[in-house]
């Protein structure tokens, strides 16, 4: 975002607040006078003027637009243009913090959104930043190109490609394979292994995110007793978690602010680990026999959240606090936080950016989700072809391998070929799909560096997803064709054909196959339909931008319109495929006639 859009003020990585699109800002009473830099242009060529900034702020402030960013500048009451490059912002009360609050307000070209609304920016993002958006494929990649007219001079790197690789291991494999140049979030236990590669360097910067366990005090229960809350603190050994699970790549914080914050007080000591004291406090509070609390945690949102939560639960249990641990996808977790259905304890991170950012969290509004701002059906239809390609290729491969193998196995019944084919089919059918997929990644990407771990880029990225899907389908075809051919071989007409003295080859190819392959047609269309919508696990493991993954994500985010649209599309596809099957039958087999 910050590569495309910029804000009036900016906070550098050192935490310093500097003017950015603004040249200066003066504050007196409840008014801020902001002078803009001159000569800044949007990617569209239009100049950045006070008028344009006012249009941005007015759009945010207009309650009709329900802009989530309104909570960033809650007390702004009016914006007026003084001259081309100067504007005056009025706040309800004197607000010295406004410049800091404005660091999160990004300025876009008003000609894009003034008429069409902010949604138009999704399709046509026009800002003043060093890069303009060249191409964007949701959940797959974003290509940025250098903006020639950037006010600080053309950026040194011509094109920046952001690739979406949700899985940490896949991301690192992509780095080590040389597919990508930069990845964020290296898990601590892998640092040593990655540093061993001379081509890769790891940069570590102190984070600003404070991970803590919150307690819901809005509900009556044991947590309303101060001694229970203290006991929880004494029971926890945060240093142990830092030293082991995080391998020392974290620091202990006593409270919600980090060392970069002006209000940070290093004199505050964190609770020490004292299980004995915890038990004592619990006994005093009347819970000598222990108690049970719910403990919610998002999974995969924060570094090692899942492991840390389980270890915390174990530490609490050691002093007699049993927990019902519940892990949630981030979307579900967020939804529960919004609707206040999170009970007792919850693990969450707080980004300590500025005072303004804290205000945002206290307001409890996380902004409108981008996920919902687009038609559900459009999203489904956007990714459906990707799934269709995958399903089509997998079925094709399965047919090419499965049908000849099945025929051969049936014709040579009882031979080693038959036994091997049946054994292989049974084996393949019993292996869980996601496991086979993971093991392929382990061997071909992590160990051998032959194939990319995921994504849909170039022919080699098709190999593993297609193979993973084709395994099961091939096994089904082998079994089906084998038994179907065996049935036909034992039928009367085969005996007649043989007794006429026809060569076995002719019997098999001219007579038997023609009849035996009928069920194959049904199976083909059925499998096509199943794989089209049902390759949920494979698409997730290989980060394939298809229907299955969209549905898993949507279920996680409780985005039911998308789930419903997907289900409808899948249902319609099934119906069409059934019709196609019937038509094919009628064409190849004259006995079948439909009225």
């Amino acid at each position, binding site marked *: 975002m910050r590569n495309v859009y910029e804000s009036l003020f900016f906070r550098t990585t050192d935490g310093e607040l500097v003017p950015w699109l603004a040249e200066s800002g003066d504050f007196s009473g409840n008014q801020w006078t902001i002078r803009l830099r001159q000569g800044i242009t949007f990617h569209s060529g239009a100049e950045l003027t006070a008028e344009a900034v006012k249009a941005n702020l007015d759009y945010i402030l207009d309650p009709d637009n329900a802009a989530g960013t309104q909570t960033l500048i809650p007390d702004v009451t009016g914006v007026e243009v003084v001259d081309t490059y100067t504007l005056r912002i009025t706040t309800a009360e004197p607000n010295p913090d406004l410049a800091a609050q404005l660091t999160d307000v990004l300025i876009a070209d008003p000609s894009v959104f003034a008429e069409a609304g902010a949604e138009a920016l999704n399709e046509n993002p026009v800002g003043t930043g060093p890069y303009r958006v060249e191409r964007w494929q949701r959940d797959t990649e974003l290509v940025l190109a250098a903006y020639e007219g950037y006010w600080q001079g053309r950026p040194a790197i011509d094109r920046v490609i952001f690739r979406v690789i949700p899985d*940490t291991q896949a991301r690192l494999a992509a780095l080590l394979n040389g597919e990508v140049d930069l990845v964020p979030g290296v898990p601590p*236990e892998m640092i040593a292994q990655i540093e061993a590669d001379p081509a890769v360097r790891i940069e570590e910067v102190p984070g600003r995110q404070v991970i803590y366990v919150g307690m819901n005090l809005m509900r009556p229960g044991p947590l309303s007793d101060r001694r229970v809350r203290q006991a929880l603190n004494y029971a926890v050994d945060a240093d142990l978690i830092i030293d082991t699970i995080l391998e020392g790549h974290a620091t202990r914080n006593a409270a919600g602010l980090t060392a970069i914050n002006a209000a940070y007080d290093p004199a505050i000591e964190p609770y020490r680990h004292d299980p004995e004291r915890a038990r004592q406090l619990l006994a005093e509070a009347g819970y000598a026999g222990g108690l049970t609390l719910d403990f919610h945690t998002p*999974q995969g949102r924060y570094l090692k959240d*899942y*492991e840390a939560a389980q270890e915390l639960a174990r530490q609490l249990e050691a002093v007699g606090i049993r927990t019902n641990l519940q892990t949630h996808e981030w979307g579900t977790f967020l939804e529960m936080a919004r609707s206040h259905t999170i009970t007792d304890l919850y693990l969450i991170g707080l980004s300590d950016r500025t005072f303004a950012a804290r205000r945002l969290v206290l307001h409890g509004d996380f902004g409108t989700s981008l996920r919902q701002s687009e038609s559900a059906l459009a999203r489904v239809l956007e990714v459906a072809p990707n799934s269709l390609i995958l399903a089509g290729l997998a079925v094709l491969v399965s047919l090419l391998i499965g049908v000849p193998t099945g025929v051969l196995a049936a014709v040579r019944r009882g031979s080693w070929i038959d036994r091997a084919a049946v054994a292989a089919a049974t084996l393949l059918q019993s292996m869980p799909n996601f*496991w086979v997929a*993971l093991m392929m990644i382990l061997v071909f990407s992590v160990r051998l560096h032959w194939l990319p771990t995921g994504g849909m880029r170039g022919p080699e990225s098709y190999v593993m997803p297609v193979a993973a899907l084709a395994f099961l389908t091939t096994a089904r075809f082998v079994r089906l064709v084998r038994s179907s051919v065996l049935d036909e071989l034992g039928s009367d007409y085969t005996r007649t054909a043989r007794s006429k003295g026809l060569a076995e080859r002719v019997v098999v190819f001219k007579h038997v196959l023609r009849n035996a392959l009928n069920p194959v047609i049904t199976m083909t269309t059925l499998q096509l339909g199943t794989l089209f*919508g*049902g390759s*949920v696990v494979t698409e997730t493991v290989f980060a394939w931008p298809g229907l299955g993954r969209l549905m898993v994500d949507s279920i996680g985010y409780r985005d039911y319109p998308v789930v419903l649209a997907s289900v409808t599309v899948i249902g319609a596809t099934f119906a069409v495929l059934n019709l196609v099957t019937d038509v094919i039958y009628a064409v190849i087999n004259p006995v079948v006639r439909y009225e």
Partner: protein
Amino acid sequence: MRSDAAGILSLAVLGLLVMAALAAPLLTPYHYNEGSVTERLLPPFSPGHVLGTDALGRDLLTRIIYGSRVSLLVGAASVLLAGTIGTVIGLLSGYLGGRFDRMVTRIIDAQLSFPFMILALTLAALLGPSLRNVIITLVVSSWVIYARLVRGQVLEEREREYVQAARALGASTARVTFRHLLPNVVPNVIVLASLEVGRMIIAEASISFLGYGIQPPLPSWGKMVAEGKDYLFTAWWISALSGAAIGLTTLCANLAGDWLRDRVGR
């Protein structure tokens, strides 16, 4: 006979698995959630941990043994419940016909036109993650297969002489369906059920793998594959061994099912 050998062998392995699941506390000195984070990610053949430890320092062998409880319980319970419900509905639908039958066939057709995993996943997400809800999800998603099989067979059997005779003697609907029809459809139901066990075990693993199934710290094989996924580089054995356990169990269930089918002669 070779197929007999394979079938009996796989039944024996399944039997061993069931015994291991029941006797888990006797087979391993650890509890499934026991361990220290200071002993995390130990490789196989470490002292005291034959198969190594996971990301929280828990003994992997212990978790695989306890994990068999979840897989076998889910496999058995969902097949038993779905089989019973599906059979009863299929019997009534096939025998009674009329509006009830039309309604049931509608439901069967509608449900079978969606991929099984999508239906199961949506249900699991709606119900919330827990062992009980996974079983409910699998039962709701799979009873139609039994209902379709039984209904089809009842339509054939209904016209047979023995049913006509029973009706002519004034037997009630309940008596005809459960006393006369049921024994004739049960063998096929058992064959189908035996083949469904493997599918249900894999389905539970997939649901748990995607995060909508069994909750930690309870070990489920699918969940353990997912947990190991974040350590493929550093500790591949977590995913590899847990997945192998699923594969072995499903393979045995399928081989036993095949063998049963050949014996029943379908």
